[in-house]
């Protein structure tokens, strides 16, 4: 019978392999699955492609994963950070690849990946360097850029509540990329602040239906990235 709850973060991420493409939820620290990312650092798998809106803050979470040399390429919209040089130094040294994607195109490409849409047209980036080399098509008198979907082997996301079937709710603006990344990855791994039995989440308020979720680990008190950074923590 279905039970997606894992006993530890190690078990939750056990299936992640060298060279994997991993979508990581979060917009800055909001929604960042920091315990799952730290477990990934402990595990040490490398050659990863990371899809996230940003490229990490301070020297914890995503920035620490990049700093550990485990990331070959990052797909994101905004890799600049006021409090982290980890990405920028690697990037300037040519040691990490960057695919820069406008934020809305990033979100739509991920959603398309989850929705079985291989490609779509968008007005975003038309006439800019980010549209160079891309097909442009006129539709009803306006020009649009062709964009392809994004999928991943793994999604790591943070939810507020999860039930045993994988239904999720989120906390406020921590929702951001979680629901669409859960759709677009072959295996979706969730850290939830609270795990409940199936039936304890009102069907009307489920944000991510359980069929998008594979593994769940309960992290009752997740680390708060900005607090760690203020305390000068660097992981590990």
């Amino acid at each position: 019978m279905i039970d997606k709850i894992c006993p530890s973060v190690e078990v939750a991420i056990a299936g992640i392999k060298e060279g994997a493409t991993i979508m990581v939820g979060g917009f800055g620290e909001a929604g960042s699955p920091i315990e799952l990312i730290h477990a990934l650092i402990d595990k040490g798998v490398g050659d990863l492609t990371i899809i996230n809106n940003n490229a990490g803050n301070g020297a914890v979470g995503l920035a620490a994963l990049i700093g550990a040399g485990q990331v070959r390429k990052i797909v994101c919209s905004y890799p600049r950070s006021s409090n982290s040089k980890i990405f920028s130094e690697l990037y300037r040294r040519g040691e990490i690849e960057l695919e820069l994607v406008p934020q809305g195109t990033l979100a739509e490409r991920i959603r398309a990946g989850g929705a079985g849409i291989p490609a779509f047209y968008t007005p975003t980036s038309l006439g800019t360097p980010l549209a160079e080399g891309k097909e442009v098509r006129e539709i009803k008198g306006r020009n649009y850029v062709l964009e392809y979907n994004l999928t991943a082997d793994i999604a790591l996301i943070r939810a507020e509540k999860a039930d045993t079937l994988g239904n999720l709710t989120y906390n406020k603006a921590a929702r951001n990329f979680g629901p669409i990344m859960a759709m677009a990855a072959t295996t979706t791994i969730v850290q939830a602040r609270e795990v409940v039995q199936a039936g304890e989440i009102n069907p009307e308020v489920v944000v991510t239906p359980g069929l998008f979720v594979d593994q769940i680990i309960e992290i009752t008190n997740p680390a708060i990235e900005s607090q760690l950074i203020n305390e000068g923590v660097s992981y590990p």
Partner: protein
Amino acid sequence: MSESSGKTGLSRPQVAWRAAQDLVDGSVVNLGIGIPEMVADFVPDDRQIIYHTENGVLGFGPRPAPEDEDPDLINAGKKPVSLLPGASFFHHADSFAMIRGGHLDYCILGAMQVSEDGNLANWSTGAPDAIPAVGGAMDLVAGVPNVFIITDHVTRKGQPKLMKACTYPLTAVGVVKRVFTDYGVFDVTEKGFRITEIAPGLTVSEVEAKTDAPLEISDHLKLIETPSNI
């Protein structure tokens, strides 16, 4: 597969029972309108199946008692359903994102015709006065990895429905994996139909005579044994 007596082959409930045995524990399944809906009645007790209906419900259960029916809680066949613990609601674009995005494991549909290369025709006879109506079938078969068909082996007029090539307008090309009929179970392989199980009281040559395509016979051809209470 009609309920009339004196007929060989499985009854419709027996075909639905047989199809139910092939659903893996923990899978997400969309059942088409009509006979496929019966499959839910025959899933073995030790398996948990999550049912999806394209009008926006995951995790629904059987038809409720009349006094518990809600006109806002229906399945794709527009019949009332109940909710099981862990159900969820979502809008139509999200529902078809699930379907097209490959997040369901099985869909079980009816068919007018299936061809040996897995083509499906189940939405229109192409007759000039017919009202064409496609619903969600084309999306389901395009997106769900395991497309199973439940159908009578022949039409009411005795015409084969398992075909060398479909003559009706197609629902999709090359999507059907397995067909369950009153005559047996047929896998769609690269070489065409392979009969893997046969209904009691029928011979392979009788099945071949009612099939408009060559049949490969499985080395392990089995007789279907249905429980006595179905």
